[in-house]
């Protein structure tokens, strides 16, 4: 029990705050290596520390980190909890980071199990703990399997089969070197096959964002200088769709003003107006604030004024949004056109007075996210962190093979990473290794004395 485990201990996407919890010897070191404000290895026990989670130089999120040293913790091991700003993307990213830095994804019920095994929970409670482990893991196991729809399971099974075919082929080359009917797996052959597997996994991961869209919608941020008409656009969109105007304050950073529904998908409209207009030093910090919003949203709608020439700030904003999925809405097209824009930009023109261009805007969003083609039953989505982490892990092992092929590492060693990828996908669909390989070997190849 010396390894350090990590898991998200809040329901994903539900609360405004998510907590990533780590337990074990390396918990503090691991978080310290991705935390930039102070040295967590030196802070007092049971303290809360403010700072940023960083990936190399890049700031991922502003967080509060609780450091609790053993033995006065739930598991009687060192525990670190990272309180971050909810949101699937950020939470997943942080979990991935701690895993990259040496933590292992916790099994269902594992924190409780450690609490017991380390003597935190009294012996009298033992039976109920074992009940708990039983029920949690059974439930989780079912969830893990049922959480994947049939199609996704099939897609993963197919990828896994491809990997197993390769492994079996390599094994036959090794165990029956004189058997000439099996293709000799060479570096080139392996490269071709592994590249295909890599593409399959990448597709799965890119579909993962679709899964996220179905579950929690698209975060759309409206940005632009004051008085370009952001709020009126927001209101026009909402009025027309009779959406409920909510007032959920999410984080200190974003204010989700309203939700509307497009083709069954939730669009979370994030208006930056509130932040901007209460601020006196608009020109200065305006761009900085917008940058943060640009980073966290899925889609940026940059609003510009048709009736004015581009200001320096506009130009900077245009530059900023180019790195993200964006639409530029040129408002006030009922007035004289003074604006000059590069025609490579993704532009829609309209005005809120005559409610002109708003349909086009919605249509654009539908097109950009294929919302008319999303059918929950049909597509293959990965929808939770566990799934995404496992697929990413598999992809990493596969990528390592491609690197090592270039180094001329012998095939039987490259197979170690093939097995890794195979195992990870197996965990995802609830299938174990057991006799699969040996069965495959003798089913596919005609071997013997």
């Amino acid at each position, binding site marked *: 029990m010396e390894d350090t485990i990590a898991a998200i201990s809040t329901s994903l996407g539900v609360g405004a705050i998510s907590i990533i919890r780590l337990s074990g010897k390396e918990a503090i070191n691991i978080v310290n290596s991705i935390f930039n404000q102070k040295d967590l290895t030196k802070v007092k026990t049971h303290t809360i520390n403010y700072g940023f989670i960083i990936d190399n130089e890049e700031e991922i999120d502003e967080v509060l980190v609780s450091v609790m040293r053993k033995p006065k913790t739930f598991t009687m091991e060192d525990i670190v909890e990272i309180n971050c700003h909810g949101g699937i993307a950020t939470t997943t990213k942080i979990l991935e980071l701690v895993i990259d830095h040496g933590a292992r994804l916790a099994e269902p019920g594992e924190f409780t199990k450690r609490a017991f095994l380390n003597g935190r929970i009294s012996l009298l409670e033992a039976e109920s703990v074992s009940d708990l482990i039983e029920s949690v893991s059974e439930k989780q196991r079912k969830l893990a399997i049922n959480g994947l729809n049939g199609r996704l399971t099939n897609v993963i099974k197919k990828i896994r089969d491809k990997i197993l075919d390769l492994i079996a082929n390599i094994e036959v080359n*090794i*165990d*029956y070197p004189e058997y000439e009917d099996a293709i000799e797996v060479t570096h080139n052959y392996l490269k071709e096959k592994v590249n295909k597997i890599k593409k399959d996994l990448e597709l799965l991961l890119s579909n993962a964002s679709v899964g996220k869209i179905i579950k929690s919608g698209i975060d759309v941020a409206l940005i632009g200088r004051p008085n370009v008409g952001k709020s009126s656009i927001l209101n026009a969109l909402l009025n027309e769709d009779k959406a409920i105007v909510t007032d959920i304050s999410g984080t200190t950073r974003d204010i989700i003003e309203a939700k509307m529904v497009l083709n069954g998908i939730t669009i979370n409209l994030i208006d930056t107006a509130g932040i901007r207009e209460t601020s006196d030093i608009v020109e200065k910090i305006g761009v900085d604030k917008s940058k943060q919003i640009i980073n966290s949203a899925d889609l940026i709608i940059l609003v510009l004024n048709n009736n004015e020439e581009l200001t320096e700030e506009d130009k900077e904003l245009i530059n900023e949004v180019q790195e993200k999925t964006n639409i530029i809405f040129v408002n006030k097209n009922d007035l004289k056109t003074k604006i000059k824009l590069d025609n490579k930009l993704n532009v829609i023109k309209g005005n809120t007075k005559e409610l002109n261009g708003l349909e086009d805007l919605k249509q654009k969003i539908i097109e950009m996210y294929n919302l008319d083609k999303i059918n929950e039953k049909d597509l293959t989505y990965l929808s939770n962190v566990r799934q995404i982490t496992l697929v990413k892990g598999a992809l990493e092992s596969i990528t390592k093979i491609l690197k090592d092929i270039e180094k001329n590492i012998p095939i039987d*060693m490259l197979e170690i990473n093939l097995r890794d990828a195979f195992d990870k996908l197996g965990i995802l669909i609830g299938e174990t290794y057991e006799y699969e390989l*040996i069965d495959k070997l003798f089913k596919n190849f005609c071997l013997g004395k």
Partner: protein
Amino acid sequence: MNYDIIVVGGGHAGCEAAHIAAFLGKKTLLITMNKNNIADMPCNPSIGGTAKGVIVRDIDALGGLMGKVADESHFQIKMLNSKKGPAVRSLRCQADKITYPQNMLKKLEATNNLTIKEALVEDIIVKDNKIKGIILSNQEKIMCNSLILTTGTYLKSNILRGDVSLEGGPHGEKRSNFLSDNLKKLGFTIQRLKTGTPPRIKASSIDFTKCSPEYGDNIYYTFSHDDEPIYKIEDQQKCYLIYTNNKTHQIILDNLDKSSMYGGYVTGVGPRYCPSIEDKIVRFKDKERHQLFLEPESMYYDEWYIQGFSTSMPEDVQDQMVHSLEGLETSIITKYAYAIEYDAIDPLQLNPSLETKIIENLFTAGQINGTSGYEEAAAQGLIAGINASRKLEEKEPFILKRNESYIGVLIDDLVTKGTQEPYRMLTSRAEYRLLLRHDNADLRLREYAHTLGTITSEMYENYQNHLAEINNLKEFLKTTKLEINLEIKEKFKNNDFSLPLNKTPLIELLKRPEITMEFLDEMINIPFDNSIKDIVSIDIKYEGYIVKTKKEIEKMLKLEEKQIPKDIDYKKIKNLASEARDKLERIRPISIGQASRISGVNPADISILAVYLKKEYNND
């Protein structure tokens, strides 16, 4: 008469068991039906092969005989997979079916404390679940403190060809009619297994001009760590490759219902890895031809083995089949192929020491445990012999782990998973095979052998010298630096290698994938044997993979350390799934690690078990 240890059966398991027990100072009796069939090779005329070759190395490192006898008795030797990675290389030799048994018998007869007796054993004497002795077919009783059964395929064996079924073992030897029934009465679960062997052909009736030759290697090899090669490369014999054809396939398909297997005359379960030719043709219909290897059985008689042509067809069909093969059109079959079925015990009834769970001081090894292959048998015999001896001295059993030897993998698989078909070792069964290599058998096992007392002091010294050489080379590579001069610059350039900094230690250079020991040797003389260079290169070049494997092993070992008390009552553990409870009850694993490898015991069950152990035994 009273013996410390009696070994029943003189096959590969029996020979190793008897030898090592006697070597360990136990007064030992080896009973065989026929002294001339000691270490008999009733099937293929070869020792070693993929994974199996490493088993032979491991047996040798532990003080067994197989490698040394093979070195004295072969007429061809090859390193398989020599072009692949270092982890999967394995030796195989064509062993002479006359000289191998003779050389083994010589070694056994020269072993102190060992008596060999010809007899047939029909029953065992048990008192209070403890072994006391054996009863021979003439009712003679011989008493012992410990018994090792290595009866091979001789328990109630039937030889099958078509609808003809003969009672008896290979070579028409008598079978033991009652021993397996008597074991059943004592509570053993008996299973019926099946295997087979191909026809043998008179060499002078083969047209070798139509067959393509297969040669031995041009490098000298030995299985043993202690021997120098005694053969000459140029004296090695050829084997030949031929193929089946449409005509062969048609004959088989036309006569399928006449084969013992397809005619329904066999009840035993055959191994998938060694299917009969009729199996191959039925299961792989679209294959136009199958490879067959012609291998001489001995230099002392005129008989060749057709590897890949095992069948249970009647004799007349076998004649047609053989005559359809190119080069064998007019050949004479000297011994027809047959299938053999026999009784074996369920290996789940064994402890990892190979002592049975039911009867104290009763050990079993080899085919009786459901395995196949000379090497697998010898390995178990060795371990049973060691552990039977240790038990008499009240010492802890010697159990190899999965990361230490293929022998560990073999026995762990047998006693944890059982087997439904004769079990053959494959490299794919070993998850840590990167560490279980041909080249490092002594590094993995000789220290154990020394502690166990299974090798001579001379053998141990050998090993220590070898180890010292390895360390010397490592030190040499760390301290020797490459000084770049014009000539060396040119050499790197010619090979398209990027030039290193001046005075880079050799060890750093070797870490680069493109730079080999030979390449460095051309610039700086590295005064060490090639075998030493190989081992050290592997360690340096594949360090990343080795470290990764070692991490996996660490995890596994932590689970192995968590012992399960022998008296645990699984019925008392609430919440265990019933399948898991049944399996745990039956297999009674010695550690959490072993428990986690049982199929049908899932991670939730393991958690519950761990919690229970903590509660009941305060066990970490």
